[in-house]
């Protein structure tokens, strides 16, 4: 059974296809879908293609169902590896998660930054 797909358009014009159920992790998008104000293409005007691709990767991994089983342990390990990025990227991921209202990604980003500050790895200059 094919699932419904929607398109996300990044600030630099790139298009990304994503399953609607997966996209619903973004509460902002979920609200738009319910309000029926999507025309199958949703412009995400403040997120670059590079960051949006990572956000979609995160959402795909965290959309756990019968077709995509994943244990908590595996997910935690994957999250840790996923956040092994430079602080510029983490910063923009956090912004994207904030604007798209992805609670789990936001919490992950917060904890990552906090851990970096604790370990003196977050450079302020």
């Amino acid at each position, binding site marked *: 059974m094919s699932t419904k797909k929607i398109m996300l358009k990044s600030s630099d014009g790139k298009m990304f296809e994503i399953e609607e159920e997966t996209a619903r992790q973004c*509460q*902002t998008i979920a*609200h*738009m879908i319910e*309000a029926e*104000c999507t025309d199958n293409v*949703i*412009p*995400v*005007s*403040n*997120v670059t293609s590079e960051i949006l691709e990572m956000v979609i990767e995160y959402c795909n991994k965290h959309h756990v169902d019968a077709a995509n089983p994943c244990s908590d342990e595996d997910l935690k390990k994957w999250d840790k590896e996923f956040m092994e990025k*430079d*602080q*510029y990227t983490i*910063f*923009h991921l*956090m*912004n994207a998660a*904030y*604007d*798209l*209202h992805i609670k789990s990604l*936001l*919490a992950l980003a*917060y*904890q990552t*930054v*906090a*851990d970096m*500050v*604790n370990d*003196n790895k*977050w*450079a*302020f*200059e």
Partner: protein
Amino acid sequence: MSQIFSFAGENDFYRRGAIYPNPKDASLLLSLGSFADVYFPPSKRSRVVAPTIFSAFEKKPVSIDVLPDECLFEIFRRLSGPQERSACAFVSKQWLTLVSSIRQKEIDVPSKITEDGDDCEGCLSRSLDGKKATDVRLAAIAVGTAGRGGLGKLSIRGSNSAKVSDLGLRSIGRSCPSLGSLSLWNVSTITDNGLLEIAEGCAQLEKLELNRCSTITDKGLVAIAKSCPNLTELTLEACSRIGDEGLLAIARSCSKLKSVSIKNCPLVRDQGIASLLSNTTCSLAKLKLQMLNVTDVSLAVVGHYGLSITDLVLAGLSHVSEKGFWVMGNGVGLQKLNSLTITACQGVTDMGLESVGKGCPNMKKAIISKSPLLSDNGLVSFAKASLSLESLQLEECHRVTQFGFFGSLLNCGEKLKAFSLVNCLSIRDLTTGLPASSHCSALRSLSIRNCPGFGDANLAAIGKLCPQLEDIDLCGLKGITESGFLHLIQSSLVKINFSGCSNLTDRVISAITARNGWTLEVLNIDGCSNITDASLVSIAANCQILSDLDISKCAISDSGIQALASSDKLKLQILSVAGCSMVTDKSLPAIVGLGSTLLGLNLQQCRSISNSTVDFLVERLYKCDILS
């Protein structure tokens, strides 16, 4: 950041906003200077410089400050310890505001043990006065002390220009759960909301003092009562909007209350006072009621329910009558009362005071002042009834005469050690003798101050009546002559204050020092203008253990100071020669000679001593505090 979705329609499903409901809150904070009470581990200093992120693949720097407050807040609350939060708080005013708004229960990780260990919880004390009382300073204190054991005591003394508000107290409430004592003075900008924050965050609060807090009402006190069951001390002064409702809540919830002081709070009435005392778990030991609109009912309740009261102060209770004091004494509840102070209460009559004396069998100390209706009969009856009395002080009781004074001395029993009579204008000199067998052997301290009618005959009677006197204070008694003073010399005197006794002579000082040289420790003859260098020669020759000498405004000169310095026995710690115009720079070597033991030297208004001499003494006598 702008909205990221370019579409029209409803967008109120997620409203972005500051972490504060009122966006102006953050701007209430003033600029953060070097005063900030924020702790920095050395390893953290270098990295907290400029909150900017640089991209490897984008030249334009991105400021972390563009993150919404919620994001920063969430990061800060996940930091592993108070030191890390302190370091972040010092980056900017905005960050300080955010860090100080984190409640302890919102911190996502258990705090690390402080370097001092856990013994120090709540051991830090901070005080903010006047212009220094600002919300920024409070926020800095809140964050800074959290990493070093926690704030235990906070005092804020505001001024008309104080920029401290509920926002500052919120920082304290959220970051300082160990706060045990809070004192707010003259801060009309702090309201009930500030106290609500303290109540919510500082459940360990034990002492609360509110003085001239005109915007705090019963609501704030009720919040404290409900959330701070360990409250032991409550002080309210000039809080015009706090009344019985607040006290009722305190009475219901704070069973450990030991001390209550309420002054000049017009809304506090009998019901509030009654609720504090009639609580079954009440263990109130100290009670002060001053300038309140309470009636005889309150005193009746005190007399009946004040079973644990040891210290009682009643002052300026203009609506309390004789009946109130009579009922209080007959209530037989004040069995543990140790100390009683009654000031400016019209209800203190002979009958009222006698009743109080009978009702408080264990009272050791009594101070009765500004009681115009109290006469000799009442005073003597009180003395007879108060079998345990050790100290009695009368001040501005203008109907009390010499008969009341001597009558109370003779009737006070064997325990009276100290008697003080101040500004009692009806005291005259005795014209009749006292019974030959009478004596007051326990009396060690006698103070008669500014009673102009007190004369030689009275002193002669005291000399016979009180052979064990050690401490005598006859300040401002201009009616006593040389012969009167000489009646006192048979005692083993330790402290003497004859300041302002203009008839004091060298002969008296010579006789007293000859007789009491081995016991005298303190001698004050300030303003005795007939005292000359001869007295200082006697002091130098006779006094072995004198440590405190005040010869201000006496007729002494350089040779007198020289005599003091030449004594090998004298080891003065405090010397005052203020206003001695005949003491000149020539005394410099003598003062330096005395300086090996001196801790305090008063040279004020010594017009013949130059500034250069004072400067030299300040440099040379480095252990000594010098007033000039």
